[in-house]
């Protein structure tokens, strides 16, 4: 289950001409095309596994599934369970490392 889940939507040729792509969209495209996004994902994944963040999230999911009955859980439920705690418990060092790399990419891509 690797790789980015978020993809930009496939453009439809019949639609009216698109607006100017936003800066964020441009950056996203550059990240993907250069392969940097994949590398960043790998780095983030590795760091989050190392520090036990992933295991903590899995434990939350297991507890929720046990309470609700394992056939009654949906992916959406689990995402809602994990997101607040997940965002809050990322170690500062991991966040700093990733942000630094992203900023370096932005600089090198002259954005």
């Amino acid at each position, binding site marked *: 289950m690797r790789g980015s889940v978020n993809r930009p939507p496939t453009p439809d040729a019949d639609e009216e001409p698109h607006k100017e792509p936003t800066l964020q969209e441009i950056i996203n495209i550059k*990240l993907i095309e250069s392969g940097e996004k994949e590398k960043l994902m790998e780095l983030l994944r590795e760091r989050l596994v190392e520090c036990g963040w992933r295991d903590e999230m899995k434990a939350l999911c297991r507890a929720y599934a046990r309470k609700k009955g394992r056939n009654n859980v949906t992916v959406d439920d689990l*995402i809602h369970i994990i997101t607040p705690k997940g965002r809050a418990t990322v170690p500062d060092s991991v966040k700093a490392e990733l942000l630094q790399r992203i900023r370096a990419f932005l600089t090198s891509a002259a954005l």
Partner: protein
Amino acid sequence: MSASDHESSSPRSQLSTHVFGELLESMIVDVASECHRIARLGLERNVEEEEEELRLSAQARVADPSNSSEGNGKNVVDIFGQTHPAIASEIVDCMNCGRPIVAGRFAPHLEKCMGKGRKARLKAIRSSTMAHGRNSRASPLSVYAPYSNSSTTNRIANGSVSADHSQGFEEYALEES
């Protein structure tokens, strides 16, 4: 258009944070979908055990009025709310020699009595030697084969004249059934 590039890093750090947020969200969805898969496919072997343990410990806590910790191994309450002493204290009669034996000591007694242990086998050899000499109706088993049917030998020659004893054993057997 957004602010020019040579301005302060604030729009850039906004962008960086946004990119980081996207990456983190991907990770979250990743974990969530993996856990969902594990839950729905029942891939976790320990789930039923854990639930069973939770239930049992809750029951035991209810049954035990003093609510002591689980460190007290001997007086733990079972699922019917009963406690058991470490050594069974009921007295049963040995069907081999007829003696009353404490249930907790029954297995070692049977070992000696029926000839699984070393002393009982020696006893069997010695007794069968004497019985062989004394009785014309002695068992056809040779003295030098202590393992074969030692229990039969023992029953015949266990400390008394063979005829009487086997008679007694037959009566006992009938009573049992």
